[in-house]
């Protein structure tokens, strides 16, 4: 990676997505910023680590970011990034917690439920549902098989539905 125009194009295409992926995974804006920056620094200084035959550069960058986030999470495993109370309750009187998740107050609850998922389920929801990445691209980023992406996403959605329903009845 030596062409500034190519780099700028890649950066503008992927930086916000990678930043938000790292933000959802870590819950920390400073970690997200550092991870996003380090992912692109990897592309600048270690271009040989990207093998075009294995897929697009976008999922590669997400994969680098994923590994960096994992390192942060493991290093700070005793520290909770997710402050208590972040998961706000659903709007009062909601008989069906999944009825209208597009309401602003329910989006906040949904954001909290995603943040509370175990990392391996959270990452697949963030990549496939929030970033709208294809299963193939997510598999490349997660360094796993497409079938694993599908099964984890299915499990993650079931967990989210369960959590949202439980919150409604609390």
């Amino acid at each position: 990676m030596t062409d500034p125009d190519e780099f700028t194009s890649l950066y503008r295409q992927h930086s916000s997505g990678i930043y938000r992926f790292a933000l959802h995974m870590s819950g920390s804006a400073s970690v997200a910023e550092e991870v996003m920056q380090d992912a692109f620094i990897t592309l600048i200084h270690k271009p040989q680590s990207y093998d075009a035959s294995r897929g697009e550069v976008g999922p590669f960058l997400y994969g680098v970011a994923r590994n960096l986030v994992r390192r942060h999470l493991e290093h700070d495993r005793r520290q909770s990034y997710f402050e208590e109370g972040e998961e706000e309750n659903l709007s009062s009187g909601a008989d069906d917690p999944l009825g209208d998740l597009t309401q602003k107050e329910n989006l906040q609850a949904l954001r909290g439920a995603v943040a509370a998922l175990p990392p391996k389920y959270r990452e697949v929801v963030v990549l496939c549902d929030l970033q709208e990445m294809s299963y193939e691209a997510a598999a490349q980023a997660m360094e796993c098989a497409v079938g694993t992406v599908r099964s984890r996403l299915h499990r993650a959605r079931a967990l989210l539905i369960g959590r949202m329903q439980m919150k409604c009845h609390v």
Partner: protein
Amino acid sequence: MNNEEKLVAGLKALAASETSGPPAALEAALLKRLKRKRVIGWPLALEVLAAAALVAIAIFSRPPVAASSEFVAVPYAMPIGPNERADLVRVNVPVVALEQWGLKVSAFDPGQRVNADVVIGEDGLARAVRLVSNP
């Protein structure tokens, strides 16, 4: 709409509601880094070689020392890649600096300066460190 479809619709709305992004200054900083790497020329390369030679002379002209600890990865640093060139630099640093890098040197006075070997990656960032003690 079943529950999963409702959830997916909610997640799409959540994604659409998010506008956060990295600071604008980061793009310029990374681009500057790319250009700096790209335009590195002979004068700078010679300076780097000269500095490396001086470090090598300084290291090899000193009395032999015994390594007293294994290398410890610097927190949050990228591991050295299989094809990545790395430099080993011996430095004299305060004990407290090594502790910040994850080395346990509680036997020393925190204000004391000690020798340490630092592995530097191609990007010029420290990747690992080990404590060195005089025999």
